[in-house]
């Protein structure tokens, strides 16, 4: 399963990559902001996108909307933090298929994503 991770924190990206790759996911790309994320989505056509909400240049919700325009079936999972309820609501209404709360651990991520593994 091909995954694209979009997060401005390298730390989170690396952590996610390590977690996912240990469980048979293929992280095909990483992006550090929304603009790059949309671009990479277009290029790589991943099965799944993990999307941080708070990012420079273009935030995760705007990027989610753009991705949904490109492909209404796109599966985008938001990475959010406690206290960001408002943004999470917004992203769900914009078509996010789920969200993972920071701080997350490997087990949680894999459990959450396993629902999409076909």
């Amino acid at each position: 399963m091909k995954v694209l991770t979009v997060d401005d924190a390298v730390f989170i990206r690396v952590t996610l990559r390590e977690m996912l790759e240990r469980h048979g996911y293929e992280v095909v790309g990483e992006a550090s902001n929304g603009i790059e994320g949309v671009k990479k989505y277009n290029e790589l056509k991943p099965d799944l996108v993990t999307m941080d909400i708070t990012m420079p240049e273009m935030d995760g919700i705007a990027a989610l909307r753009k991705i949904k325009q490109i492909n209404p079936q796109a599966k985008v999972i938001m990475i959010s933090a406690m206290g960001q309820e408002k943004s999470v609501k917004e992203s769900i209404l914009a078509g996010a298929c789920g969200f993972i709360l920071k701080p997350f651990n490997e087990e949680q991520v894999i459990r959450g994503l396993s629902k999409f593994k076909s």
Partner: protein
Amino acid sequence: MVSEYSQVSGPGLFVFETNQLLDKLELLILGSEKNGGLQASMDEVFRIMHTIKGSAAMMAFQNISLVAHSVEDVFYFLRENRQTTVDDSKLTDLVLSVVDFIKGEIAKLETGKSLTGDASGLTNAIQAFLAEIKTLDPVLAGLPLKSDYEVMRQSFIEACRIEGEEGQTICEAVVFFDDDCGMENLRALTVLSELGTYAQKLEYAPGDIVENDATADLIRYEGFRIWFTTTASMTALHDFFAQVMFLKEYSLMAIDHSDASKPRIPRCIDLDGPLVTASESAGQPADATGDSEQSLAAKQSFISVNVAKMDTLMDLVGELVIAEAMVTQNPELQDLNLDKFFKAARQLRKITGELQDVVMSIRMVPLAATFHKMTRIVRDMARNLDKQVELEIVGEQTEVDKNIIENIADPLMHLIRNAVDHGIEPVDVRAAKGKPLTGKVRLEAKNSGGDVWIIVQDDGGGLNREKILQKARERGLLDQDDSGLTDKQVYAFILKPGFSTKECVTEYSGRGVGMDVVAKNIAAIGGAISVDSAEGVGTTMSIRIPLTLAIIDGMTVKVGDSVYTVPTIAIKESFRLREQNLITDPDNREMIMIRGQCYPVLRLHERFKIKTAVADLYEGIMLMVELEGKSACLLVDALLGQQQVVVKALPGYIKKMQGIAGCTLLGDGSVSLILDVDGLIQT
């Protein structure tokens, strides 16, 4: 945590990235202090704090995460309520203390200590600050929205039913989420949003999941209940629920039509239209996007590389250059007519040369980050000393080798401290002298030839020649008549060990580090420092440092069977001695007189105890070397050639000795020692 899953990746990256963010944040804050407050940069401050909070929480560094969260809250509030006026200097101080706290914790992490810092005081102060600015805004004083769990529970207990149309099934689903997933109300919202594709009519309980985040608790314990009409098959619906993230368990059943009664609490949600709140904040980041799109390209073109890898690459290129020389200048090729070979060899040489240049340039880092650290130091010191000081930074884009950057920060910090502490006068003194009240410290970097100059200049009181001379006499540093000394020579005394003309010790001086240590540290990276001053006008400290330490231009010379490399930069000229130039002083020391100047003679074979046939001054070659105003003539057997050499350290087993700076590999694979001209002249 379950042990079958390993913890997130090590702290190295966290430390690196957080440090970067903190540096950026600090710059941002200090910059905004000049340009009308934090309001302009609050989006970025918010984002940085948010990222640090998230990463720290991932690493389970609660103290960092919590304090970052408190700052994030403040900026979140400010972003949402842009009209709010805040005490900028108080906010700046709070944020800076948080930066300091986190930096301190990160430093502990870097040295492998455990994080023990307690930020609760700081967190409280920030929360109090937030509460304070919230009360300033009467509309928002009533936040946040909370509802009573019991009321929710009551409303939930009343069962609900809806009516279906022909051909539609009415279904009831109850969903429970994983215990640790958090924000259950929004998980429920996700289910609703996705279920929209299958359902025509949709009702649910609790009904206020969007507005009321407290429903999360209710759903956690009681589950989330949905009634909907659908034309989809049960199999399709089961497939759908199986795909819901963090779904612990669910029940799905078709219900009898006749049972239906109007629900009271559940309500419908318009899945196509955005929420009011959503559209409000969606406008915000979109605006920012337009502004900064251009800078994006530049930012994205950088990657971080492990320094150890860079060093290895550097070594390898050095080896490559040597190997190339070993091949193309192989003695076995001599006298052969190999046109094509030499053509190819020239191409190889060109490419290796370019490669070397590129690798060198990769190691070059702008001084900007180091310089901007000084801004903070000046600010804090000026505040504590009750002085008005402005730091002017010039040429921050000047690049020097990574190794040098690491070694220049401390000496530079000391010079800046000195300038603010001892150089710049208190405001009243400046007023009395008719100087501008705000003192100025200028930090400048520039390229000049093969060197980089870093200049620290202040417009403070300057140095007092007489005081320094007096102190030098007391310390016994002056052995002869001092009237002939130039100002520069006099000022150079402050670089000597144990020399300080300051009677008063402030927080920033008297830390046991004197100017002599600064001078020594700079010398250690191959640089030199000089002092110039005018009393009442100011002091200028000029540091000259080489661009890079790793590759130098060297002259290879022969002494007996040994081949030494002399840094070309130190060589003034080479010549054969003529009888009329040699003079011997009363102590029988040999001196060479050239153009009216006297130079001491240093026979390298004597100094290094090497057997050579060329012991006679007239037979060998004299190499005049000069560094920092001191000169000598070295006697060597012969000059062999000039080439770029890669400096390598001597093995640790061999203790560092004066006169040898390191070693290098020559084209034939042999090892040549690199002379430390400064050390040689001193002995």
